[in-house]
């Protein structure tokens, strides 16, 4: 399975960057315009899923393996939790917006709203890697029939990268 036709591959090569950039834009300006971490993360995951569909899974897994995606996933959750915990450290409560209290930015500026942009980026990372992992899991697993006719799930990680 090496992907789709050359038309799909060419269009994907041009379009993937714009989808990715649109997702990043929605994540970064989540505190100013509609959108936010969840929607942006889903759109970024869409760009990688498009890559996987058009070029085959080996091509996409070479760029972002399951181990890296799992690391990004954990890193996103950890960043969100650390940002929340820092509220306690700076003399407030859990989820106190300490950055906004200390350095209030101008209204409608990109660098405003304290830790909300950072939390958006964390959630965006997390959702993106989560959805990509779900897609990897679902598209790598195969249902095979063995000799006794029993169904079993079989997976093929690329070149023994895992376990």
């Amino acid at each position: 399975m090496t992907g789709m036709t050359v038309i799909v591959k060419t269009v994907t090569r041009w379009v993937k960057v714009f989808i990715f950039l649109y997702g990043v834009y929605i994540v970064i300006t989540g505190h100013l315009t509609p959108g936010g971490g969840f929607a942006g993360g889903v759109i970024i995951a869409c760009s990688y899923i498009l890559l996987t569909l058009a070029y085959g899974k080996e091509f996409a897994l070479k760029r972002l393996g399951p181990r890296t995606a799992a690391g990004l996933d954990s890193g996103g959750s950890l960043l969100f939790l650390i940002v929340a915990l820092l509220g306690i450290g700076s003399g407030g409560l859990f989820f106190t917006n300490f950055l906004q209290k200390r350095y209030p930015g101008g209204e409608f500026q990109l660098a405003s709203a304290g830790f909300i942009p950072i939390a958006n980026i964390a959630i965006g990372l997390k959702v993106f890697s989560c959805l990509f992992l779900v897609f990897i899991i679902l598209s790598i697993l195969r249902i095979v029939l063995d000799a006794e006719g029993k169904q079993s799930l079989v997976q093929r990680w690329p070149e023994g990268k895992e376990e």
Partner: protein
Amino acid sequence: MGTEVILIILLFFMLAGALIAVETKNLLSSVISLGAIGVGTSVAFLFLMAPDLAIVQIAVEVVLLIFLIRATIARDVIPQRGHIAWGGLVVVVVLLAGLLAFGAYAFRDLGVFGQPIIAAVQDAPSNRYLARGMKETGAANIVAAVILDYRGYDTLGEATVLFAAILGALTILRVRSRSGGGKP
């Protein structure tokens, strides 16, 4: 008044999509009808002036359709056959009629569309967020201010649920095939 008419038309569109998705024999048509329901929901959110939800809905719907088509239909296509079970159909129709009657009874005292009861209360949380959210959090998007600052616990719980789900899926599905023994 105009919004309600548009919403009712959208609801009929979505109901038709749901009926087709349940009743059709072809799995691919069923999945595509599910996509129509998602698009209808997204447009309804747009008309209700909730662009955040509309963006999330349309993006998640696209990814979900890809998942459904790629992960289920390409693997095992099971054509649905069989006759209509008349007894079950009668039970379903009676239950639906009962639900409809109960809904008509329960929604009698509902307020006017677009004017929630909580907005009339002076010290309601939503009024406070709308009045002081910009000053307190500095975020121009009030949705981001609520879900990441005022209601940060909810977002943390949602992130935890997603994390646990993907962890469980990776752990369970990582097992190699038992009967094959080693490399498949």
